[in-house]
C-alpha cells in the first residue's frame, strides 16, 4: 500500500514537465522542490532527534555561496600581502564542495552545542546563521556583499563520451531537483530505519534509558547534524545554480521559519511530512498571488498553518496515518499478532 503510493507519487512528479508548460508554474515547482529538500534535512534533526535548528538556512546559504564561488572563482587579499586566487571550476565540483563544507559546518555546530542541547542548540544555530549572514554581507571582496554574486553558471553534467550537458531549461532543472530530492529522501529513509535511526529515536524519547543501553548521545546527534547540514548544503547549491544570483538575504531568518513551517505542518518525524508541507507552503504563494498582496499573504500562511494544526494536530501525514490505522485496526483487532518483516521467527 505504502509502496504503491510512493511509486504513484514519483511517477506523478516525474510526469509534471510533460503536461505543465507554464514556465511560471514550473519555476515555482523548482524553487519549491529546492526548499522541500531543505525541509527534509531540517526534519532529520527536528523530527527524528527532537533538536530544533533555527539557523538551518545557514547550511543552505553556505552551500549556495560555496558552490557559487567555486564556479565563479575569486581573488582575495589575505593578511601579509598574500593573494588567494581561485580560477573558476565546473559547477558540479561546486555542488560536491557545497555538500562537504556545509556538512563540516554541521559538525562544528553539533560539536559545540550538543553537549548541552535543547534551548542551547536553538540559540547556537540562530547565532551561527546570523554570523554567517554578516560575513556574507561584509566580506565584500569575496561575496560582493549586498551587490550579490551574479552570473552564476548553470550546473553542467559531465557525460562520458558526449562532453557535458548544461542544464539551462526549466525542464532540465526540474528533473535535476527531483533526482536530488529523491536521493535525499532515500538517504534519510535508510538512515532512520537503520540501527542508527533507532538510536536517534531512543534519544528523543528517553535519553537516560538510551544512554544506559550504550547509545552515545554526542556522537549520534553530531552525525545527524552533519548529514542534515550536508543535505541542506546540496539544496543551497541547486538554488545558486538555478536562480544564478545570490545575496546575503538568502540567510534571512524568515527562510528558516518557512522550512520549520513546512516540517511542522506536514508532520515532523514522518518521511513524507516535509514533502507534503513543503508543496503546500511552496505553492501557496502561487495560488494566492492573483488575490493578495505579498505582505498580506503572510497572514494567510499563518491562517493555513493554524487550520492544519487545529484539524491535524500532529501534522498532516502522521495524523492521517494514525486515522487510517485506527480505522483498519477496528476491523482486525482480533487477528493474531505476527512479528514483523524480514522473516523474524514467530513466537510459539
Amino acid at each position: 500500500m505504502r509502496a504503491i503510493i510512493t511509486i504513484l507519487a514519483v511517477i506523478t512528479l516525474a510526469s509534471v514537465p510533460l503536461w505543465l508548460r507554464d514556465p511560471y508554474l514550473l519555476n515555482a515547482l523548482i524553487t519549491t522542490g529546492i526548499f522541500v529538500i531543505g525541509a527534509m534535512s531540517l526534519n532529520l534533526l527536528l523530527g527524528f532527534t527532537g533538536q530544533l535548528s533555527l539557523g538551518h538556512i545557514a547550511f543552505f546559504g553556505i552551500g549556495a555561496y560555496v558552490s557559487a564561488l567555486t564556479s565563479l572563482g575569486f581573488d582575495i587579499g589575505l593578511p601579509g600581502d598574500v593573494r588567494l586566487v581561485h580560477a573558476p571550476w565546473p559547477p558540479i565540483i561546486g555542488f560536491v564542495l557545497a555538500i562537504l563544507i556545509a556538512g563540516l559546518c554541521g559538525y562544528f555546530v553539533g560539536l559545540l552545542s550538543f553537549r548541552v542541547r535543547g534551548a542551547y542548540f536553538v540559540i547556537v544555530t540562530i547565532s551561527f546563521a546570523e554570523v554567517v549572514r554578516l560575513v556574507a554581507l561584509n566580506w565584500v571582496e569575496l561575496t560582493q556583499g549586498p551587490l550579490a554574486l551574479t552570473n552564476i553558471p548553470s550546473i553542467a553534467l559531465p557525460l562520458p563520451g558526449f562532453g557535458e550537458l548544461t542544464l539551462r531549461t526549466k525542464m532540465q532543472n526540474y528533473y535535476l531537483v527531483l533526482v536530488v530530492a529523491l536521493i535525499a529522501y532515500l538517504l534519510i529513509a535508510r538512515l532512520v530505519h537503520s540501527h542508527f535511526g533507532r538510536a536517534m529515536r531512543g534519544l528523543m524519547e528517553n535519553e537516560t534509558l538510551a544512554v544506559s543501553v550504550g547509545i552515545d548521545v554526542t556522537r549520534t546527534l553530531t552525525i545527524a547534524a552533519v548529514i542534515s547540514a550536508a543535505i541542506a548544503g546540496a539544496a543551497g547549491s541547486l538554488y545558486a545554480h538555478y536562480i544564478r544570483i545570490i545575496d546575503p538575504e538568502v540567510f534571512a531568518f524568515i527562510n528558516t521559519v518557512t522550512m520549520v513551517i513546512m516540517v511542522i505542518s506536514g508532520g515532523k518525524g514522518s518521511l513524507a511530512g516535509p514533502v507534503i508541507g513543503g508543496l503546500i507552503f511552496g505553492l501557496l504563494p502561487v495560488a494566492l498571488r492573483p488575490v493578495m498582496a505579498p505582505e498580506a499573504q503572510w497572514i494567510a500562511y499563518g491562517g493555513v498553518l493554524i487550520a492544519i494544526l487545529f484539524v491535524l494536530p500532529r501534522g498532516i501525514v502522521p495524523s492521517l496515518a494514525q486515522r487510517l490505522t485506527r480505522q483498519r485496526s477496528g476491523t482486525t483487532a482480533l487477528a493474531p499478532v505476527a512479528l514483523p518483516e524480514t522473516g523474524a521467527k514467530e513466537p510459539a
Partner: protein
Amino acid sequence: MTARSIAMTIDQVAVRFGGLVAISDMSFTVGEGEIVSLIGPNGAGKTTAFNVMTGFLTPSAGHVTYQGTTLTGLKPHEIADLGLIRTFQRTSVFPNDTVYDNLLIGLHRQGRVRLLDAILGLPGARASERRLRQRASELLEWVGLERRAHDAAGSLSYGEQRLVGVALALAAEPSMLLLDEPVSGMNASETHRFVELIRGIRDRGITILLVEHDMPMVMTVSDRIVVLNYGRIIAEGTPDVIRNDPAVIEAYLGHGAGRA
C-alpha cells in the same frame, strides 16, 4: 562464596550534594554470578549508589571497579559498553515505540554496523538487521511479552512496562545487571514470575545487583544482602544473617520481622 572471582568492587565511595551526605564511605564487592541485594529505608542512598556505578553520578570520593576497569570518568554509554547495564526505578521505556522496537533500540550494542553500509543496504548490514530482529523476538518470548509485541510500550500495564525495562537491559547483553526496584508496582503473581526470571538471568551467567523494598522477595532470591542506612553500610551477609541482625531490625525490618 569465597571461591568466586570478584566482578565489582565498590571502594570507599562517598557522594555529597553540597552539605548533604548521600553516601559516606561505602565499600563492598559483588562476585561473578552472584545475586546481591542492596536494601535500606527510603533515602538510604541505594539509587545514588546505582547512579555512581553506572556513571550517571561522579562520586565525591572513592571509586568503583568493574572487571578490572576503574569506572571513574567514564560516561554512562561507555560503562554500558563494558557490559554493566541498569534498569530504572520509575518505569522507563521508549513509550511511543512498540515493545518490539523498544528491544531493537536496546540491541544497539549488537547492531553496530558502519553507517555507510546501513545507508547503502549492504549485505553485512542486512544480515545484522536480521540477527537483531531474531534476537528481539527471542527476548520477547523469554520475558513472556510476545503477545504485546506490536503495542506501544507506553500503553502497557505497570508490571508489563517493568518487564519491558528488564528485556531492554537484557538486550544490551549485560555481564552484570543492576535492577532498581524491579517489582515495585507488581502484584504477587507477577512478583513470583519475576523471581523466576531473575534466577533465569543468573543461570545465564549474569551477575545481579538488586535494589528492592519487597523483603520476602529479597530474602528468597538473594545470595547476599548489603544493608544501607543514612548512607553507610550497617550490615552485610546471607539472608539468614541479615534477618537476625539487631542493627538491621532496629533500622529497617522493624521488631515484627524477627518473629515472622
